[in-house]
């Protein structure tokens, strides 16, 4: 689920690499679309070629519909998308300067680079002019700053500013885009002296128009989010899993693994609040509070955990809550500590275990509990592990690991 870099799916160090690859692709498409030709670009101001306007409107409504529908499908966290902040004065001044530059030079910044790369001399001059402008802006920033930072309005969304619902705005913008297609085509034919097509719009637009309008209307019909995502586990399957005693880790297993780090295959996830975790935590555990357990980062951490994820809380209740939400979200093979920290303390320290028979396993359990209790109480089980560090997700660091055995 995107965005991929802020959520840790892609290493942030690769940010510029992806920008470079996407930039190459964008440049190639611009060039292939004829956007390296200043006459074509300037045509929008003279009325003989509106391809720039149509391309950018197409891109806008495709992105708009795609973002909304991907958000509905759960492929995209729309709330995490970066919204460019609105500085009113710099937008007005920048818009005027760019408009003049566009008319005079026949390029905008991106298309000038594309044209310069393929050897257009006018574009090279345009790029040099642009660089001089950037240099001057940097040198005299103090003078420009009041305009640049003036009238900050926050991260505005158009539909919020207009008091419209998102779906209404999408529909209106799609209609505006389609109207722009119709009007610009008629102006273009007129200016170029071509026979104006009969009817409201060119027949070849019928299909794309109908499809885009259809998607905009679909957004009206669909709820904000589906009640269940396609990768979720059904209630019946969850019920089967709930009935499986194998989803619990008991006191002895946890104690053994804490005291034997070399055989500890558990990834202990403490779901208590951060302040409680700071007061006490099991060695090697990481803290993902219950409130955050189904964020994309947390689910990714659980899916890619180096060991068997085990939820821990004071009792079984919050661990169970975390198990339910994360399991439904599609994370397989989750476990929880039976009885929680309270149960662990009661079994290990409060209630002395007495072997129920002379059987070897019972005798072993009694000896183990006695020795383990001593190891834990003296702190020997919590000493920092200096050998090879446990592998945990990059976003989470472990508490010191346990050493020793019994």
């Amino acid at each position, binding site marked *: 689920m995107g965005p991929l870099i*802020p959520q840790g799916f892609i290493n942030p160090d690769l940010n510029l690499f992806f920008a470079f690859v996407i930039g190459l692709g964008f440049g190639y498409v611009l060039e292939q679309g004829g956007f390296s030709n200043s006459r074509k670009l300037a045509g929008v101001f003279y009325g003989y070629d509106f391809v720039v306007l149509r391309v*950018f409107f197409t891109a806008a409504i495709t992105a708009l*519909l*795609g973002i909304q*529908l991907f958000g509905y*499908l759960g*492929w995209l966290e729309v709330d995490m*998308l970066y919204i460019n902040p609105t500085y009113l004065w710099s937008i007005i001044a920048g818009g005027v300067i760019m408009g003049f530059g566009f008319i005079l030079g026949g390029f*905008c910044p*991106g298309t000038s680079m594309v044209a310069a790369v393929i050897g257009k001399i006018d574009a090279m001059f345009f790029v040099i002019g642009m660089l001089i402008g950037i240099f001057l802006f940097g040198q005299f920033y103090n003078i420009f700053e009041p305009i640049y930072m003036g009238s900050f309005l926050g991260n505005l969304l158009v539909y919020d500013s207009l008091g419209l619902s998102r779906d209404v705005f999408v529909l209106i913008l799609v209609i505006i885009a389609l109207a722009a297609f119709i009007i610009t085509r008629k102006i273009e034919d007129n200016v170029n002296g071509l026979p104006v097509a009969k009817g409201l719009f*060119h027949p*070849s*637009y019928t*299909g794309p128009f109908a*499809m*885009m309008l259809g998607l905009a209307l679909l957004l009206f019909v669909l709820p904000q989010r*589906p*009640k*269940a*995502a*396609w990768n*979720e586990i059904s*209630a*019946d399957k969850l*019920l089967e899993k709930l*009935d499986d005693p194998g989803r619990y880790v008991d006191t002895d297993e946890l104690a053994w693994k804490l005291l034997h780090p070399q055989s500890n295959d558990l990834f202990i996830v403490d779901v208590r609040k951060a302040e409680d*975790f*700071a*007061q*006490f*935590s099991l060695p090697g555990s*990481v803290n*993902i*509070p*219950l*409130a955050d357990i189904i964020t*994309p*980062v*947390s689910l990714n*951490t659980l899916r890619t955990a180096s060991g068997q994820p085990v939820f821990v809380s*004071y*009792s*079984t*209740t919050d661990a*169970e*809550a975390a198990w*339910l*939400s994360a399991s*439904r979200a599609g994370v397989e093979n989750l476990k929880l500590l039976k009885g929680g920290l*309270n149960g662990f*303390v009661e079994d*290990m320290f409060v209630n002395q275990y007495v072997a129920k028979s002379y059987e070897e396993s019972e005798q072993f359990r009694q000896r183990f509990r006695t020795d383990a209790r001593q190891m*834990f109480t003296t*702190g*020997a*089980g*919590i000493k920092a592990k200096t050998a090879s560090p446990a592998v945990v*997700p990059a976003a*989470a660091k*472990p508490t010191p690991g346990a050493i020793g055995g019994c």
Partner: protein
Amino acid sequence: MQNINDKMLTGAALLFVGAILFALLVQWWLAPAYQTDNAVLHQRLITGELIVKPWQLNQLLSEDKLKNVALVLLDGAKFEGAKKFGSKTEVSAAAILSQHTLSFLKNKEKVYILAGDESDALAAAWLLQAKGYTNVYALANNPDFIDKSVLNDYKPRWAQTTAEKARYDYNRFFGTSAAQPRSVGSFAVPTGQPQVKKAAGGC
């Protein structure tokens, strides 16, 4: 040339819409039949909406409204106070989604689930809420506690008591101290805040 452009535009639009419709179809086909979104349900878990605390039960009792509440006892839990509820049924946890249980829940104003372990009651209530039975809640604690400390001898200090509570000085048992260098920030998994970078440039 114009004709080629038109054909490409139509083809691209078809591909785009086709891909979206295909994804919607896959979503509709594969998504399990829940009535409540996981995020919404998780929010109810976090805020404790799914769990009925002792003070809430005591309030119903003192206002004589417990008769309007139906009770589901899980896995044969022994509960003396059951007779104070309007109606009662006993089911096993494995049969919580059975027809018998679902038909019992219908037309009930409120249904409370009680189990030997609070977490079992919570899991049952969560499953039923996920299936759209939003009148179902889990009773906090266990039958013994509710019998003795809520329905018979209620004390205000037990008002918020649930199983999920720190009951021991854990550091004493583990030979550790809270002062150990375990800052919350360094151990917590970050919650995916967007990295704010200033955008620049135009087209």
